[in-house]
């Protein structure tokens, strides 16, 4: 029997294009059955979980021989997904032991994500674990590895700024709105154009507390539909002007040949507003607002490129924070490996305890005739004496094994030696074994 190791077989946005990933991806509903199939058909895998997101498909498993397990799993996937191995074979990566654990921790901490620090991956990893636990394919090692991945991710999220900063256009717009406005509940957003991006930004602004929403669109029906969906008020496009001064945030996404509003007209708007600040978000290409509006007092105009730059800057900040995350992963990896090394001893320790206790039983059995003749208190004393002797012996051996070495290899070597000395080579029930002992007696 080989050494039990953690392994990962998978592909991600780093190795495979979406055209390949989408063919292998598992829908959430397919996962329980797939896990059951692996359990039944892939004998070399003793524990397994499936992580399937838009950016990666990975099998995290435990096996005695990880290379056999990976081969069998790859074949299983090819058959299960009806995709030839040549299509995705090159994109597959295989990792085992320390590499696999590091990868799992990095994935959970969002260090391997397309957008470093994005928070969804941890939830997806938790789901993968929960599915596997429900399917009964999680054992001692996966349980420990996943929980270590969760706690590592938490530590990194708390200890670094990896999840900070607005990294998308819409979240950059929201972050800017927060810098300009204090109270959001008394603010009004006006959507000019009912595009997807504008809708997304409006939803995010609503989620941070903006309550009042005006929507205008060249097609009035679109405005009405979106207004109903978002809980806003539709305003006819040919009469939006009186409503403009009510808006603190204006999101423009109308397709126009030239800007809708010029600076002169806007000057009047801001005066009517008594110079209360206005935040103009221009998502239109070509742009909806004249760029000179930005120089009007208390007006802040950001077009799609400006917002993109804000997002890029935050992304760069996150990359810097990611280095700190990598350090934390290495620390946690060490403690996980320590645990894994201890785990290797578990069967050995069991065997040693078993064989020594067996030895005692045999000896007691052989001397049963005269022990039976003893009084109850003396019988108990013999019992105690032999038990304390074997316990002390076991204790000393375990202590020696546990302090054996720093590396897993050292530990394994010590365990093997101990096993050979104390169990494997002898059969305690073997009469020959008794004979050897008898020969020693005078």
């Amino acid at each position: 029997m080989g050494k039990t190791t953690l392994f990962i077989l998978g592909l991600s946005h780093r190795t495979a294009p979406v055209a390949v990933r989408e063919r292998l991806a598992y829908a959430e509903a397919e996962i329980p059955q797939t896990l059951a199939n692996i359990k039944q058909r892939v004998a070399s895998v003793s524990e397994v979980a499936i992580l399937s997101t838009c950016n990666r498909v990975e099998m995290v498993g435990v096996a005695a021989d990880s290379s056999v397990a990976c081969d069998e799993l790859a074949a299983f996937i090819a058959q299960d997904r009806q995709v030839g191995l040549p299509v995705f074979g090159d994109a597959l990566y295989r990792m085992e032991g320390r590499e696999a654990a590091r990868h799992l921790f990095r994935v959970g901490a969002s260090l391997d994500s397309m957008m470093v620090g994005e928070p969804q991956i941890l939830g997806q990893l938790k789901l993968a674990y929960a599915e596997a636990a429900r399917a009964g394919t999680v054992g001692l090692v996966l349980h420990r590895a996943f929980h270590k991945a969760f706690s590592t991710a938490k530590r990194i999220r708390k200890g670094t700024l990896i999840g900070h900063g607005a990294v998308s256009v819409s979240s950059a717009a929201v972050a800017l709105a927060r810098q300009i406005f204090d109270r959001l509940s008394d603010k009004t957003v006006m959507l000019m154009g009912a595009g997807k991006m504008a809708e997304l930004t409006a939803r995010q602004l609503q989620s941070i507390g903006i309550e009042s929403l005006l929507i205008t669109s060249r097609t009035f029906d679109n405005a009405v539909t979106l207004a109903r969906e978002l809980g806003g008020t539709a305003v006819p496009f040919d009469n939006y002007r009186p409503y403009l001064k009510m808006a603190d945030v204006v999101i423009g996404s109308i397709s126009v040949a030239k800007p809708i509003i010029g600076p002169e007209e806007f000057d009047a708007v801001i005066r009517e507003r008594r110079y209360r600040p206005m935040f103009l978000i221009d998502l239109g290409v070509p742009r909806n607002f004249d760029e000179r509006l930005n120089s009007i007092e208390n007006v802040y105009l950001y077009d799609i490129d400006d917002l993109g730059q804000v997002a890029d800057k935050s992304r760069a900040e996150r990359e810097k924070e990611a280095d700190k995350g990598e350090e934390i992963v290495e620390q946690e990896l060490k403690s996980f490996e320590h645990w894994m090394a201890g785990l290797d001893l578990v069967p050995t320790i069991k065997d040693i305890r078993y064989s020594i206790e067996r030895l005692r039983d045999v000896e007691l059995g052989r001397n049963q005739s005269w022990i039976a003749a003893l009084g109850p208190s003396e019988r108990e004393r013999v019992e105690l004496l032999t038990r304390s002797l074997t316990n002390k012996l076991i204790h000393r051996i375990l202590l020696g094994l546990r302090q054996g070495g720093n590396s897993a290899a050292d530990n394994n070597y010590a365990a093997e030696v101990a096993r050979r000395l104390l169990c494997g080579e002898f059969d305690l029930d073997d009469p020959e074994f008794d004979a050897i002992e008898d020969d020693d007696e005078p």
Partner: protein
Amino acid sequence: MGSLWLLPAIACYALSAILFLADRMSGKVRLAGWAIMTLGAGAVLHALDLAARGLQAGNIPVANFAESLSFLAWVTALASLLLIVRLRMSVIGAYAAPAIAIAMGVSTAMTTRGRLVLPAPLQSVWLPIHVGLAIVGYAMFILAASVSLVYLAYESRLKAKRPLKPDAERLPSLEKLDRVNYSLLAWGFVMLSAAIVTGAIWADATWGHFWSWEPKESWSLVIWILYAALLESRLTVGWRGRRAAALTIVVFVVLVGSFVGVSLVFPGKHGGSFG
């Protein structure tokens, strides 16, 4: 004459200024807590110093320019602590704490040796009322100017589309800064008005006339009119934001210039103190 509390107080102020600035610069290390605590410690030690001087003088210690400056610095420290803790605007500390530390340095350097005695006509219950109101008013104007500086810095960043820092969440918004600026100006104006009125009543009781057009009085009136105009422009035309912040700073510069000038060049009846 400095009491033994003075130097430790100045040391605390200076340390607090350094901590506030370091907190602003680094953006990552959280030093604001320590900065607030040292500022508080400075204010407590400073209060002991002021109490010692007050007992010696038999009234609040504002006999000359140096003492008045010290008293003003203390009130400013208290007001900024209030602002920082209650409104969670630790960014103000980066402006107020260095100003307080510098003011204390100047005050100590200017302090003359020997016992200071207030001229007899000024030994009155009106002294703490009139001077206290004026100094609280000035402290409000100092903080309003600090808040306005912060406002202008943020404003220009937003206008120039310079990307946000990851810690932007803990900075106050423009709207909040503008609102706080307005409250500080309004309270400062109320205090200044009350100081002028109580000063006039006191002058009438002592010298028999409300107003004598001495330089201090005239300049106070000018400052009062400027602040009145500043508040009025917000209430009627709605001047707020950048324009309000810039004007707050301009009026404050006039205030500092005129009062320092008047105190040192034309002492008048106010006797070189600016209270």
